[in-house]
Structure formats: C-alpha cells, structure tokens
C-alpha cells in the first residue's frame, strides 16, 4: 500500500501543472476563483487551448482524439485543473453525448459529431429531464413519431444547463407510447436550429441564468440522428448516467473552495481578529477539511481500483453524497464568514471587469449566491436520496 504518487505520476502532475501555469488565461482563472460569471467565449477559449494540447477529451479512445491516460492520470488532471482555477468543462458534449456516440453510435455518427466536439464547433446540451419526471426519469413524455425519413418530436425538456449557448441537444424521447416505462424510449440527436424549438431561460433562485426549458413543437429530426436502436434508448441513458456519476464527489472543486474559505476567513474579522482565529469557526473549518481529506482518500481508493480494472459499486454513490455535503458545508461557512455582508445582492460586482466601487471585497458578492446555487448539488445528478436508494438496493438485496 502506498498513498503517494509514483515518480511517473509525479512527473505527469508536474507536466500538467506547468501546462496550466503557462496556458490557463489569468482572467479565466480569476473568474473561477472569485465566482464571477463565465461567458460562452471564456469556455470556448479554454476548450481550444486544451484541444490544441490534445487534452480536451482525455476519456476518449486515442483514435478519436483522446489520451491514453489511466484513472490516476485523469484524476491528477482534474485535481490540478481545479486547483489552478481552470473552469469545469461543460460536460454535455465531450463527457456525455460523446461516450454514448462512441459506444452506441454508427461510424457515420462518429465521423460527423466527434471532430466537431473536439474542435468546439458544436456546443451540446442535454434533453433528459422533464417537468413531470424528476428522479423518475423513465416517466418521460416527450414524443417522437416516425414519419418517413423523419421523427416528429413534440414535448418539453427542462433543467437544460447552458442550453442558451448550444447548437445541438441530445434527447430521450418516447417512440413507443404503448411500452412500459424504460422500454419504448429512444436516444435522438437534434439540431437546435430546427424549426419548432424554443429555448426559455429558467432563472435560478440566486438570480442566475444557467438552466433552460426547451420546447419541441413538431420538430422534424432525420432518422439518421437516432443513436443505437429505436426503443432501446434506455441502454444509452443508463450508460450515460453511470458515466456521469464518476467525479460527482467534486473533490478538486471542494479543495479549491476550502482554500478560498481559508482566504476569506483570514480577511474577514470577528472581535477584532481574523475570523479564522476564532475557536468555533476554525474548528468548523477543521471539521470540513478532515471530511474532505477522508473523501479524497475514498476517491483515490476508487481511482486506484479502477486502474486495476475494478468497477465502482456503491462507493461512488456514497462518495457523491459525502462530496456534495462537504461542498455545501463549505459554501455555508463561506456565506457565514461574511456576517451582515452576506445580505447585499450585487450582480454587477459579479461581472468580471467590474470597475465600480467594491462594496466589501472582490470575493464577497458571489458567496451568498453560491451558497444558494450549490443547493442543487444534492438534487441534480441523481438526488442524494436516490443515491442512498441505489446503495440500499445493492447492500440489502431485498
């Protein structure tokens, strides 16, 4: 047993660090660290830099433009990226639809879509959730009716993250209305420019526009946009959800947030001293730091097992719960650190490049908003209750 990285792994880490130091634009890193708004252009700029290095799609097979990294290297890359303040990659193209196309798509689909994801030409979004189907994904209602060479799609999707930037959407649609639940669902790729598609913003409770509703009104989709077999879309959906669950513990992001917390607590004061010197507050930081240490060890254990070919079972659900609770605890402490200054809501100060009067500090405007925004972590990606159901099923076998 050995908890330290091997010399090769350390060398790789140094290479990643050096790359990030040289290539990650300072303005983007500053936005990430201070919780400022990221523009579409910011995402695209960083993605192009990664693509040029060949590191945009580490998880893809080499022949499609991926890397030969193992789980440990991927983990190191993610950790270092988060530590350096690199933006989290928008996953819908590179890490969601692409794996499905690689696994279930035909050659034509691979040739068409994968290069455009790599190059940044296409921006994908997801069409999974529906208003009536939250955790109960299989109860979805969006219909696709075959009409010659096309499907005619009608229905509504929701929680479509960054759909306002996307030119493509992958959708789960019901192609056999008679079939029960999971059966009769198909996986369709839809060009957002097709007539009949409307994107409506959903403002989240922190006032941010990150998610959207997408309406389909007699949208004509060519049949060649079907991935896998008709009515067998649930297979793709399941594969994608499993893929999505890894990394949901968000250790790298939490470590960055914890560093931020310490910085904030060193500047904020209580009783005339930095807040971090307050016994109660400091012990709360220590508590969450220890929890994070344990979750990081847990992640490393899964990563190590994966590099030996192991398939994570209940551990990844457990880590998703632990990881999101840790992240939420950190955002709680960050908000708390501001005292009465958690109240001011200053969207203008959350824009990068704001050059007006700063009310408190550069870090302060985003903290309360971020606390509220991060409540989503225990809801989306399979709520924490659903994760516990998954584990229960595995361990109880009842």
């Amino acid at each position, binding site marked *: 047993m050995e908890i330290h990285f091997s010399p090769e792994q350390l060398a790789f880490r140094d290479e990643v660090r050096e790359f990030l130091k040289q290539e990650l634009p300072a303005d983007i890193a500053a936005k990430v660290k201070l919780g400022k708004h990221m523009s579409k252009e910011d995402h695209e700029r960083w993605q192009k830099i990664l693509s040029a290095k060949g590191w945009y799609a580490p998880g893809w097979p080499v022949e499609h433009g991926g890397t030969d990294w193992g789980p440990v290297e991927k983990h190191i890359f993610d950790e270092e990226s988060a530590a350096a303040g690199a933006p989290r990659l928008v996953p819908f193209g590179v890490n969601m639809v692409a794996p499905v196309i690689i696994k279930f798509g035909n050659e034509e689909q691979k040739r068409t879509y994968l290069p455009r994801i790599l190059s940044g030409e296409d921006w994908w979004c997801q069409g999974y959730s529906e208003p009536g189907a939250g955790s*109960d994904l299989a109860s979805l209602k969006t219909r696709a009716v075959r009409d010659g060479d096309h499907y005619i799609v009608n229905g509504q999707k929701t929680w479509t993250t960054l759909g306002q930037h996307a030119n493509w959407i992958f959708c789960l649609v019901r192609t056999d209305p008679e079939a029960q639940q999971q059966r009769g669902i198909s996986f369709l790729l839809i060009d957002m420019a097709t007539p009949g598609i409307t994107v409506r913003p959903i403002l989240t409770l922190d006032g941010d526009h990150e998610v959207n509703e997408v309406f389909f009104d007699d949208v004509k989709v060519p049949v060649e946009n079907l991935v896998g077999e008709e009515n067998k879309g649930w297979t793709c959906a399941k594969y994608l959800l499993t893929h999505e669950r890894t990394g949901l513990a968000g250790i790298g992001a939490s470590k960055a947030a914890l560093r931020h917390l310490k910085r904030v607590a060193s500047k904020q004061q209580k009783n005339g001293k930095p807040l971090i010197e307050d016994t109660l507050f400091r012990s709360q930081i220590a508590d969450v730091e220890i929890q994070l240490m344990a979750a990081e060890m847990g992640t490393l254990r899964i990563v190590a097992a994966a590099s030996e070919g192991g398939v994570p079972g209940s551990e990844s659900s457990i880590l998703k719960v632990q990881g999101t609770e840790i992240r939420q605890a950190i955002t709680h402490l960050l908000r708390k650190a501001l005292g009465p*200054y958690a*109240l001011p809501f200053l969207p203008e100060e959350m824009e990068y490049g704001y050059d007006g009067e700063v009310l408190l500090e550069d870090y302060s405007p985003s903290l309360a908003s971020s606390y509220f925004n991060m409540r989503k972590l225990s809801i989306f990606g399979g709520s924490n209750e659903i994760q516990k159901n998954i584990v229960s099923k595995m361990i109880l076998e009842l």
Partner: protein
Amino acid sequence: MDFKLTEEQQMLKETAERLVRDVYTFDKRMEFSDSEAGFSTAFWQQMGELGLTAIPFPEELGGFGGTGIETMLIMEQLGKGICLEPYMESVILAGGLIAQLGNDSQKDELLGAIASGELQAAVALDELHSHYDLSHVTTTAKAQGSSYVLNGRKGVVIGGQTAGKILVSARTAGDICDQQGISLFLVDPSAAGVRRRVYSTVDGRKGCELFLDNVEAELLGNAGDAYDAIRYQSGRAIAALCGEAVGAMRTACDLTLDYLKTRKQFGVPIGKFQVLQHRMVDMISELERATSMAILAACLADDEDSAERSAKLSAAKFTINRAARYVAEQSIQLHGGIAMTWEYNGAHYAKRLVTISHQFGDDDHHLEAYANQLSLS
C-alpha cells in the same frame, strides 16, 4: 402560565393576517421587490392606517402599549408573506431607541410620526468588520457647538434606502470595541456629506451602505452612553425576527407538505416515501422548537434589562437560526429542482430564512454569547 391570546391580540393577529393575505400575493411581492423603494409604500401606509405601526407605542401616540407578544403576532404574519417592509427596523428598533434615549422634544417630534407610519426610520449599527459586535464602532462623532459631526461608514442599513431618518451609532470616546463611548445620532439622509449606496439584498429587500463625510447630526441620549440601549433594543429586534422567522418557516413547511402530498414520482405521491416523511417531521420538529423559543423571546423582549434576558434572547436566536437554515435547506431538497428557481415562491422563503441568521447574530455569535454566561448551577 398561559399561551392564549387575549381577545385584542387575536383581533390584532387577524388584522395583520388579512392585510398580508389580501395584498401580498407572490406576484405582488416580486413587484414590490423590484420597485425603487424595495417594498410597498401603499402597504406601509395601510399598516399605518390600521394602527399596526403604532402597536408598541403608548396610547397617546395612537398606540396599544404593545409588548413583544403583539410584535410577534405582527411579525409572524409579515413572515408568512415574506413581506418586505422595514417594520422591525423602523417601528421596533428605531422607535424603541428613540423612546428609550430621546429627550422629550425628540420623542414628540419623531415617535408620533413613526407610530403613524408617516416617518420610516432606519438604524445603522453594523460596520465593515463588526461581525455582529455592537461595540465594534469606528465611525466617529465630534462635538461641534450643540451638534456633532460624523465621519465614517456604516454597513447594510436595511430600509436605509427610503428612510426619513437614520439612527447611527458612532464613537465619541474610547477604543474600537469599548462599550463606553458609543453614542447614537439622528442623521438626516439628505444632509450634506451623506452618501448612500443603495442595493438589493439576497432576500429581495433593499438596504444601503452609508458613507458619512463631516455630516452634522443630532445626539440622541447622553454622549457615550448609548451601548446599553442599543443592546437592549437589539434584543427586541431579535425577538421580532424570531417571530418573523416562525411565520416564514410555517409557510415553508406548509408549501413542502403540500408538495409531498401532490407531487408524484414512480406513480405515487412522494410523501409516500418514508425518508421524505421523516424529513418533513424533522422540519416540523424544528418549527415547533422555533415557535417555542419565539414565544419565550416575545415574552422577555420588553422585560427589564438583565443578563438572563440577554442570554435567553441569544438562546432564542440561536435556535431560530439553526431551525431556519434546516427548514430552508430541506424545503428546497424535498421540492427538488423546482425550488431552485426564481419563479417558485418557496425559494424566496428559503432565502429570507437563511438571511435572518445574518441579522443581529448568527449561530456561532449567539452560542458563544450564551456559553459565556452559562450558569454553573
């Protein structure tokens, strides 16, 4: 021992309840929030007309001689509607400070106007690094003839954006955290040297940052002696916030309960799932705890000043802060995605509930305050 309302109290409660129900639909609330004032000046006027703003004041001012109980009844209804008006700030806190510290002419001039709602006042106690410590005052006041000149900055003055008068704590003597040497002043926001940076708050209200540059202001009470009154009146504000929190929690619980009964997943109402049932019970349990402590705070709010009163008010605020956060977070969790949206009223209850913990002391502040005076027997 008795937890019943008198007939008058019951009427008062119903008056407030009816007013909030009639005016404060969710859509209206969002409109008021977006308005320049940040609240409904019409509603404020109605509160004045119905005598609600006069409640804590003596009868000769059109008041009721109301205590913490009456305040709680009103605040609870305001909490149920997540109303935006600076009732606590103007009526309870500013009104209380003037009543306690003001000389006869100040009381004559101001209390009647506050009681009628004609004057909306605000109170500026916080500073950049005060972090709930009322004795952390760096703003200075220097005597100049019969008045004073103020310099400094006060932070997060809720209701300050529209206030006709702002009560400002400033230091006439002593060092930063000395309790001695703190004085209270009446600042006219339109006076020379006053700058207000107005902003919205995360719970949909408005407030301002108050910059004072050689501002002439009138002393309220004796110079250097205001700390005890500020602490005492902040205790009344805490009791009022507890009442508001209970109202908001109750609505948040009602919304969640309703959602559990009606929202279906996997073919059944989600309230059929035992884990969600017990979570709902835990929310109700927190609400019960909070209600008990809000009543305790209400009963003590107008008692004579004592260490015991302060400790119990800290206990109440601590309980409320914890309960409010739990109810806010779990109401979002049990709703799922829908509660993450701006359009859903539940989200705004959650925001107000969490924000209450940032006013007049968070959980750490009050746990420490309570622990510091822990009785050892």
